[in-house]
């Protein structure tokens, strides 16, 4: 069941907590740059941090490789959320790649909204190779956000 932000706020106001809960477990595909975010996720594993298992990771060289069109493909294949994660701006291994990526993501999220997707389905994070805790936090936040939106049935609805 899709819940808009105002729905959720109303329910919190009226303390209607029961209906906020959902047993929907989103399936999320994450693109991680191999120098920073992927290494940060590795570190989270090495340090045995714990987070929910909703996310699957695809390794790419740089956030600049993350073509926003991949997000459309993910949504077409009924993933509920997509995460693009790269190096912090200023720290890109390839010097400027993440600056280009950042601009593309900002524009694309607006576009997603225009074509009827909740923009929260496309998430962006900057996680460095040393930020294991941040990675775990990002994963939890993305899963929680997408849970609140509900399952992605956009393509199923139109028969694809």
């Amino acid at each position, binding site marked *: 069941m899709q819940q808009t932000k105002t729905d959720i706020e109303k329910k919190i106001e009226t303390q209607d907590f029961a209906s906020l809960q959902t047993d929907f*477990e989103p*399936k999320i*595909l994450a693109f991680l740059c191999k120098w920073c975010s*992927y*290494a940060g*996720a*590795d570190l*989270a*594993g*090495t340090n*045995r*941090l*714990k*987070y*929910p*298992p909703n996310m*699957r*990771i*695809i*390794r*790419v*060289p*740089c956030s*600049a*490789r*993350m*073509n*926003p069109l*991949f997000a459309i*493909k*993910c949504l077409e*294949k*009924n*993933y509920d959320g997509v995460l693009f994660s790269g190096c912090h701006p200023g*720290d890109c*291994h*390839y*010097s*400027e*790649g993440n600056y*280009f*990526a950042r601009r*593309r993501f900002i524009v694309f999220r607006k576009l997603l909204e225009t074509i009827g997707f909740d923009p929260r389905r496309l998430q962006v994070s900057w996680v460095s190779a040393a930020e294991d805790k941040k990675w*775990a936090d990002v994963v939890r936040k993305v899963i929680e956000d997408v849970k609140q939106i509900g399952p992605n049935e956009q393509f199923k609805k139109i028969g694809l």
Partner: protein
Amino acid sequence: MRIGIFVCHCGSNIAGTVDVKKVAGSAREIQSVVFSFDYKYMCSEPGQAMIINTIKEKKLDRIVIAACSPKLHEQTFQKCLQNAGLNPYMVEMANIREHCSWVHPREERTTQKALDIVKIYTGKVSHNKPLHRLKVPMTKKALIIGGGIAGANAAMNISVAGYQVTLVEKENQLGGHLNNFKHTFPSLEKTEQLLENIQTLQSNPLVEIYTDAEVKEVGGYVGSFRAKIFSKKSNEMIEDVFGAIIVATGFDIAKQNGHNSSPDIINSLEFEQMLSNGKIIRPSDNKEVQNVVFVQCAGNGQSGSVEYCSKICCMYTAKQALLFTQKNQNNNAYIFHNDIVAAGKNHEEFIHSVRQQDHILYLKGNILNITANRHSLKVQGTDVLADVDVTIDADLVVLATSLVAREGASKVAQMVGIPYDKNNFYSELHAKLAPVDTVTTGIYLAGGCQSPKDIADTLASASAASSKVLSLFNHDHYEAEPFTASVNQQRCNGCFDCESVCTFNAIEKVTLKNGNTVARIIESMCQGCGNCLSACRPAAIDLAGFSNEQIISEIEYAAN
């Protein structure tokens, strides 16, 4: 296509939370998978032997290893493939340890996730193509731009290792700023030894020195950079090929301005020259100098201070004050400052000892005003710690202005093909991972052109740059990772959006036989970031190792 899946237990690291037998069993159902097996330790000797034998027996043409992060054993398994007669790039690693078994509890969802990860990388490997490292021949001759201590030191290091060096210096002598002073901090050691060392380069048969010369053009790539050097002496253009380049063009000190009211307000370099010459007299009336006011953080004068710290001024001002007061017991030095930066080895101790001197006074506060009288300068300032205003009758005011990039530094950087920051200092590839590399493989930075440095740090960075060059020259070829982009020239529409986003200048224009001008990737310069792919609207560019087909497969194979 015959894919083999190898699921590793990693002892109990993976098998403790993931049902590895189930993963191996289910992976057997994925399309084109003809073999799937689980084993305790894939990276062990017997594990590797099993992989090699299985590839040969089952005639596998590509494999997936479901185990730890590729950072650990990707190379190990690439060697296995080579030993089995396959191209080393026909393996993909599915990370089911760091990204799965180590971060989730022992439950069905964890096993399901591990299987999804295996599916994703099976999808990827189904589109892997054999790749071959590009071998670029290495010309074992280095070009060093700049003959100051950084460039000269690099020339020494590289020639000692037995390789040829061409050293190009704009002025008519080597040594750069070192020629301007006699004593160095913190030990007050003389510069003579350093300058003598530099002069030994003249008789070094491996080092070719061009003074009164400038590099006018740089092209090519690592292993074969082509450079044009113009010599003013012979009025000729010299062309040569180099395997690597070190940029050591140094820095300058900002001219003092905003205090143009008197010729007796000078900058630190000018005072240093007076100290070296032994003649310390007022420029206006040639009178002897007894009282000198030094001003730290004098910035750029007119436009105020710069954002960065010039690092060496607190130290050399202390040195100058010490040398000056040692010349005559009537000499006095007053140093106005806000902070004192003395972070180097033995630097704090030096400042401490200078502060103890009777005729040197450190005043924490700003200058309010300088008025030029007939025979002296009236300097008004504040002493924040004593909470009073002070007035000093000075013979000379010495401004420690900022160290700045040389005039024309940005043009030199553009010619060489390296980026620079908003202060025109040259950018290193990564502050920590690659502090002397630039974005262009084979071009390195040494000394003050990168950022303000003292002599010790300058020589250290020159040694670092030299060692990078030597590790290139140690091989006859430069082997580039094969994850480079390539253009389908039939699809390319000649918009060159790719060229405009390529940080590494790895894209050039070529004209085809049919007259179309299209893009071509210079393989040896391409770093494989994939930025051009995202910019290419006709999808004419693809990236080996992370191709569009591979990524789409990765998305599809584990989808619902």
